[in-house]
């Protein structure tokens, strides 16, 4: 086959997919921001995305903070700069690792669950049923998920920031012989409001990506178990890639 034809076909497919995704996002955001709102659905999504993800996010953060402290101590020792462990841990956690790693875990947990649930609803005609019951599926399914993710992922990341710093503190005081009070004082004195806020802005963006990918791939799921399985995989992979890409763009804006 002609290589140019392959490139052309791939570009057309990518453009078509990007267009479909943009239209879907527009409809989803419109549904999230205009009445009627389905409060019970929104509450359920707050619980699923926020509360039930706390253990995963917490465990990720505590081990990341601990490992970060050990690595910074090892690297810093080469320049007699071990005392900067608290400063670099809090900077790394709040600006980068907290939002990115928590969101990647949520992409695996939340995007996959959304794609599987909405995909199953698609193949069992439950989404068609919603329409015949005078209920817009975008308002009932997509809007609440996007809204809940944009609000709860920053909250989760804030918790991850605190737990990540505590993970670094625990390792530093128990293994690296740091003084606990001094560690905390250094952390608080060093971190700025913008370090935290920029991480939370990233988290809200990643939350949007997580919900959008889960809903988009689930909604477009083809018939059968294989279709739902493929939608779930696509949701996780595309959410993870978009999180990395968005992280790079936001970091260049925030530096």
């Amino acid at each position: 086959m002609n290589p140019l034809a392959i490139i052309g076909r791939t570009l057309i497919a990518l453009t078509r997919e990007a267009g479909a995704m943009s239209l879907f996002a527009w409809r989803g955001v419109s549904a999230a921001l205009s009445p009627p709102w389905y409060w019970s659905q929104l509450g359920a999504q707050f619980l699923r995305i926020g509360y039930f993800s706390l253990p995963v996010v917490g465990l990720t953060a505590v081990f990341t903070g601990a490992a970060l402290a050990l690595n910074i101590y090892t690297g810093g020792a080469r320049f007699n700069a071990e005392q900067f462990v608290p400063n670099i841990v809090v900077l790394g956690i709040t600006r980068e690792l907290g939002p990115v790693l928590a969101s990647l875990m949520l992409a695996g947990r939340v995007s996959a669950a959304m794609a599987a649930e909405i995909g199953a609803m698609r193949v069992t005609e439950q989404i068609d049923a919603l329409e015949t019951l005078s209920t817009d599926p975008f308002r009932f399914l997509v809007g609440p998920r996007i809204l809940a993710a944009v609000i709860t992922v920053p909250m989760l990341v804030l918790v991850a920031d605190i737990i990540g710093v505590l993970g670094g503190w625990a390792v530093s005081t128990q293994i690296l012989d740091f003084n606990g009070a001094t560690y905390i004082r250094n952390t608080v004195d060093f971190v700025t409001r913008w370090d935290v806020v920029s991480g939370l802005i990233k988290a809200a963006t990643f939350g949007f990506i997580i919900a959008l990918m889960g809903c988009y791939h689930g909604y477009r799921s083809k018939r059968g178990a294989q279709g739902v399985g493929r939608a779930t995989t696509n949701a996780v992979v595309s959410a993870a890639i978009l999180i990395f890409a968005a992280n790079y763009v936001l970091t260049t804006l925030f530096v």
Partner: protein
Amino acid sequence: MSKTDSDIKISIRDVHKSFGSNHVLQGVDLDVCPGRSMVVIGGSGTGKSVLLKCILGLITPDSGSIIIDGKPVTHLSERKRAKVMAKFGMLFQGGALFDSLSVWENVAFRLLYADGVGRKAAKQRAEAALNQVNLGAEVMNLSPAELSGGMQKRVGLARAIVAKPEILFFDEPTTGLDPITADVIDNLIRRQVTALGATAVSITHDMGSVRKIADDVAMIHEGKIIWRGPVKDVDNSGNDYVQQFVTGSEDGPIKVLAR
């Protein structure tokens, strides 16, 4: 005999629909009169489900028009579409009950989420609708997954009738059910359509079901309506395609392997 607009509840005119190179509907024309139960028969892959979804607005036809109560409904805004949907009740082939909701919440869904009825009143109406399909209060709080296939169909029927719709749609209502349960569902459908005075459109390939629930029958083949008439004429249609379908014979103009 020609019919005036007021004699026709649903009018389908020259409706075409293709999926890629597959031309599923190739110019469907069909009228359904008010208060009549129209059953569309046809083999698998002949376009029955696509036709039903076009009427419901779940699929937009490529061309042609669908007119309900004298008003075209093919290209409507979200709000106008919701108003038209308020006239409809639909029983899906697999029930399409919402897994995350209890039985009564499924039945009362339209009342709760579209009509703004309070939970207490909605629950009472759901219980009444369940009673009409011979289900008692003991199933109200169960999950749909705890019900048998026949019970799920009955809950789906209760959900379709709870808001007293003007038009009821049934997609293969007896598929996958044993003959006795299928007969129960057919009787319930006939009784509810008559009680509501509703217009009904069903698709099925179950001739037993056709004889129970139809006033009029139309046969779709290769994307076109090739015969229609009252149910009493279906056995003597004079149409070879209908005759083959009714008798279920392999011999005739319909070639299964060719589809």
